[in-house]
């Protein structure tokens, strides 16, 4: 662990271009009518972009397990908040 690994310049540039392409893609797709898939596609691309930033720009790919656990905990708790809040809102209209 003492020697700090980090991505090469080529990789940094590659990630940068991937992010630019992702942005253009999500922008272009937004004007196509995919029905219910529009938000799904847009958010999938956003998740991919965010993952690239986290893994490479933020070096999580090269970090300790502890960092990975920390990042995952954040998203796990966010999911708890979203699912349990929606468990109320999405079932209010249901008859019982």
């Amino acid at each position, binding site marked *: 662990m003492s020697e700090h690994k980090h991505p090469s310049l080529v990789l940094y540039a590659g*990630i940068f271009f991937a992010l630019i392409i992702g*942005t253009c893609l999500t922008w272009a797709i937004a*004007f*196509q009518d995919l029905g219910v898939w529009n938000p799904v596609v847009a958010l999938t691309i956003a998740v991919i972009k965010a993952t690239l*930033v986290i893994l*490479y*720009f933020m070096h999580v790919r090269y970090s300790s397990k502890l960092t990975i656990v920390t990042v995952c905990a954040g998203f796990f*708790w*966010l999911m708890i908040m979203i699912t349990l809040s929606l468990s109320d*809102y999405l079932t209010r209209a249901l008859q019982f």
Partner: protein
Amino acid sequence: MSHSSTTTTANHSDSATTATHHPALVHHFDNMEQQKEAATFGMWVFLLTEIMMFGGLFVAYLIYRLKYYPAFVAGSTSIDVSWGFANTLVLIGSSWTMAMAVWAAQTGKRKLQVLFILGTMVLGTAFLGVKAKEYYEKYDECHIPGHVIGKGFNAWGGCSADKSKGNIAEEVIKRDHSIPEASAVQTAKQSEMFFAFYFVMTGLHATHMVIGLGVLAWLMWRANRGEFGPEYFSPVENVGLYWHFVDIVWIFLFPLLYLISRHQHAG
């Protein structure tokens, strides 16, 4: 499960470290490695709190979006997507320059560090400039929710000097000519909730950007004094983490606020 013996002390710290005592090493750490790991981990824990803070807003946004879907579509469509698109590219660019600044610090290139931090700041400022322009447009069109700032929320036209601007009701009708005006005006009124989230979310994001710019200025000053190198670059790395996080928030805000319902405009 062994049995007890007393705790001993040993001359541990001295043996492990201090052959070369780095000037940035604080007394309570054993060595630079421990100090660096603590700093990075601390930053990640801080980002965890940031995730939850924005997370609360995302949950609220999601719930209201489900509730007022047509109004959110109308509000979202009324925003000029090209500025948001441009800003996304700018912010991704700034993330790359920030990553390069960290790389420059790790490899001990002082001038490059300063240059890349400066580049990040320029791009960040550009982002805020565009944001300000967008805010001003909303102000001009009376799309600021509530009745405290500007002339009060008005999404049915006639507020801006250019009468054609900011009429969300008209946009609704343009998209579907069968919708009568009364209904379109109702939808336009409900878009106030969309704009509330637009301003709170982008506002909180912009606040983070402003803080980030302040920290970057401080970082640039330190980098210029040659404080960072392969031995010690935690501050650069941590500011980088913060900046990338702000970028990630925007990566989600852009589709959620600008894009998600855009297709119906074309259709």
